[in-house]
């Protein structure tokens, strides 16, 4: 099953996502911020990254550019409480943009699409 890395500075979000996604059969790891994030990705080799945008001390949109430059084909889904960041051109380097919600139906559907898209484009 696919490995998902959750990057979010809110602990309850990390826990919620982890429980729900593990229930879906995904293998999940977490990071509380962007510190040495690229090293962690290099080490853990996730199949997909869920990336928060507004984190204490880190800007998810800038981290996204670093991820995309180094791991060109790694699917990244931006997760934010706000929909306004999708108008920032930096967000186009993400596969998808999801507005946070306690109902994870949309997020799960988006994860499935991102993984399917990544598999088909690498074929």
């Amino acid at each position: 099953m696919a490995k998902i890395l959750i990057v979010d500075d809110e602990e309850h979000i990390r826990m919620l996502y982890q429980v729900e996604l593990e229930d879906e059969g995904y293998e999940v790891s977490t990071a509380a911020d962007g510190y040495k994030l690229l090293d962690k990705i290099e080490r853990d080799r996730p199949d997909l990254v869920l990336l928060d945008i507004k984190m204490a001390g880190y800007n998810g949109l800038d981290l996204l550019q670093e991820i995309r430059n180094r791991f060109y084909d790694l699917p990244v889904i931006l997760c934010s409480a706000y929909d306004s960041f999708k108008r920032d051109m930096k967000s186009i380097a993400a596969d998808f943009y999801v507005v946070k919600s306690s109902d994870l139906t949309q997020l799960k559907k988006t994860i499935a699409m991102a993984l399917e898209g990544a598999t088909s484009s690498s074929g």
Partner: protein
Amino acid sequence: MTQVTFSECGPDRADRADIVVGIPPVGRGHVLSHSVEQADLGLRLYFPDRQAVIIHSDHDLASEARDSFWTTKTRTPRLLLLPDRGVTGKGTLLRALFRKTLELKARACIILDGNSKGVSPKWIRNLGEPLFNGFGFVAPLYTAHRFSSPLTDHVIYPLTRALYGRRVRQPMGGSFGISGDLAGIYAEHPFWDDNVANAGIYVWMTTLAICHNVRICQSVLGRPEPGGRNGPLEESPETFRQASGTLFSMMPHLSPFWKKVRWSRPTAVFGLCPGEPELRQPMEPVRTEREGAMETDLDPYRGLWEEVLGPESLSGLDDVLAKLPSRLEFPPELWARILFDYAVAHRTRGGASEEVLLSSLIPLYLLRRGAFLRQCRGVPASHAEEYVERECVAFEEAKAYLTERWRE
């Protein structure tokens, strides 16, 4: 394919180069001077240790642009590529540039839109630097958005993205960066026709870059000047036919690739400032008289539409037409299916009837564009892109319909 020969002229010698900056033919000499000056400055500022050459290719013997190319003072060597008499077409001239890039063993080739007054030294940096950092194809990303390039927004971008699975926002944007390796692929690629030799060249380049799995980057170039490339006034029926014809003609050759693709993937983005938001800026709206085809007599096309469109598409189109002129509503899902129907028809009909076929698509395109403009009226520039995004998602969702019809 006929091999076209070119001669070279110029006071400068260039046997080798790291970077080639190519400027295809333009109509206005003073604007070309601007691009040449900015290219020279950009090369000196951002690539001072690289050997570079600026090349202009032009088929017009009495070209004012050619004069301005020579009279503009540069420190970078310049070269002019002249095709045999009678040879025309932007695509043909660009292919000569790719061959020259190969001959000079250059690692990077930057194509500059000589018609744009917006060219600055940063364009050279943003189109060139990714090529020395692992990327093979750099497409332009303009910050301006106000429906400035409807052919791109409603046909070329959504189709390219849904078919080949990469989100290259300006697949015919006029300024690009390509690696020396990719220039080699372009110089020798067997797929070539009259459409590619003309305005279809950029669609061809983008499509081949995606299908050769080249790492793609989009570089922020700021806003193009109104009236320059991508301006709606430059969008002629001929450009429409050549660009869409290129896309459709390539599909049978690339079907093993696109049939496997589901959804779409992003590219890297270059030229953004960390910590600073990058928002789209407003541009002059498209003139209202270009909104739709409601004044066009649609009856002559009816017979062909009945041949080309699937039953659901035809019924959907009848619904659209029945509401005219009081209401203009053209759902993106219907538009996606219609374009896919045309792709299938192009494969089976093609050839001599291509012009007739693609001409019959133009009124439908104008209707879709008009409906889109009405829907987005009053929407701020920063939000307009979301409407284009919805259109693209509709194309990706409708792709199963294409795959099904392609089997017929």
